[in-house]
């Protein structure tokens, strides 16, 4: 399938401040996101992963190189709204991205900005709330919901704009384990329905659910490939001070103790299945 996002030699530099001087947050990144895929971008704090996310829909503009969303350049003012409608974005803090004090009005915010007919907005809002399993909360006030529920509303707000791609910028960082699981289930579900998902995260165990894992370290790409490939590169990951996903770490340790575990076990489910069949 075609690439929905193409990043060509992206360099990004934050404006220099007197104390810090200018620092390149991203340097020479080349990355293409194929339509319909689920890509996880992982990095530690300060690795530049959030900066990369905000470059993808023109919230930040590249200092060098360019980014194409479909055929539009993010630096091109004329298509900025097409870009943002195509590539929706969910942010980290569930509180700071909800605009209205009624859930369904918040979900309607995006479609309203696109100038869609009221009856069509209604349909989209209902189906978006359905998609994140929050229909019965449609008249509630967001501040009475849990973090996970608020984040689901934020996702619904993006889904209602009918994007082809959703960029999730650390959507689970402020949630409890239950909320985190809910969000991951929804991301997987949306991806299955055909939406390209780009998940920015620092949780390795979320990244293993993706089709493709890109590791960012100090502003450049360290590793890029399937989860099986990336997480097999133990030495590279350890030298960049990164953890391995639970299942990978466990199989490595078991292997060292002489248990014959095949390569390519990255998720907890695969691990459970292997252990159950182990004789």
């Amino acid at each position: 399938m075609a690439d929905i996002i193409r990043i060509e030699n992206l360099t990004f530099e934050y404006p220099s401040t007197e104390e810090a001087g200018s620092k390149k947050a991203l340097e020479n990144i080349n990355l293409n996101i194929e339509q319909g895929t689920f890509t996880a971008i992982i990095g530690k704090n300060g690795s530049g992963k959030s900066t990369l996310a905000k470059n993808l829909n023109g919230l930040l503009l590249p200092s060098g190189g360019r980014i194409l969303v479909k055929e539009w350049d993010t630096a091109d003012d004329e298509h900025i709204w097409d870009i943002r409608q195509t590539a929706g974005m969910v942010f980290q803090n569930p509180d700071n991205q909800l605009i209205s004090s009624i859930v369904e009005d918040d979900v309607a915010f995006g479609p309203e900005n696109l100038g869609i007919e009221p009856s069509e907005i209604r349909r989209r809002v209902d189906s978006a709330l359905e998609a994140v399993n929050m229909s019965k909360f449609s008249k509630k006030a967001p501040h009475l919901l849990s973090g996970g529920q608020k984040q689901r509303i934020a996702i619904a707000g993006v889904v209602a704009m009918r994007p082809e791609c959703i960029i999730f910028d650390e959507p689970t960082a402020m949630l409890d384990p239950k909320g985190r699981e809910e969000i991951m289930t929804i991301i997987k579900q949306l991806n299955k329905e055909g939406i390209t998902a780009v998940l920015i995260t620092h949780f390795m165990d979320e990244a293993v659910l993706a089709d493709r894992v890109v590791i960012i370290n100090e502003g450049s790409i360290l590793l890029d490939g399937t989860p099986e490939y990336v997480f097999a590169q133990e030495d590279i990951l350890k030298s960049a001070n990164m953890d391995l996903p639970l299942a990978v770490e466990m199989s490595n340790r078991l292997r060292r103790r002489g248990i014959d575990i095949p390569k390519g076990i990255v998720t907890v489910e695969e691990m459970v299945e292997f252990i159950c069949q182990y004789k």
Partner: protein
Amino acid sequence: MIRDITLGQYYAAESVVHRVDPRVKIIATLLFIAELFIVDDFKGFILCGGAMALAVAASKVPLGFIMRGLKPILFILMFTFVLNIFMIDGHILVKLWFIKITKEGLLTAAFMAIRLILLIIGSSLLTFTTKPIILTDGIEKLLAPLKAFKVPTHEIAMMMSIALRFIPTLIEETDKIMKAQQARGADFESGNIMQRAKALIPILVPLFISAFQIAQDLAMAMEARCYRGGTGRTRMHAMKLMRRDYFVAIGLVLLLGLVILERIYL
């Protein structure tokens, strides 16, 4: 709990009055206030009071709830009442040393008190039966003609609704900051006014910082969701006048006519 605060004084119920278009309700309330000032005798208040009672009954807001709304103005009510009784000259009923109560004073006092009570109940019925956010939408629509004079009506309404949305968030934030400071030995409850005011500074500074952080995040989220001001924007709840809205409007205009006739002829 701090998260359960209700904003304004909205009373949730399913009633005709709740469903009336906010624009109609705002204009009706203004009209009603005007009518109260047209009235110049007690007979006129029977008309206004009757209409009021009808609206209150239809709104399903309990009487106790409405009476509680009068509490804050009780002092003003008493003050004007007493002032009127003693300050107006006329036919003397009771005389004690230099204090005298006149018939005219008593009547004016009662008249003013009734006017004030009706005024307060009338205007609070609007806020009892309309959610702040819907009220904001109504105000935006009513102010729309001012756009011709370059008044940023959409922006004003958007600011109001965002402020409403973030009041609970900021209260929670304040609570968090206060607890964090109390855990480190801050004392907000003792000392004189100056000392207490000073103790608030360490709360206000972080609160302002987090408010700016929220504003920045929110602005980015709004931009990511294609917000570009009011032009070209549609609304999911298109406000449409229903038959009940016309009834309310006709009722209020009828009342206006009656009140004027009453003033001229009775």
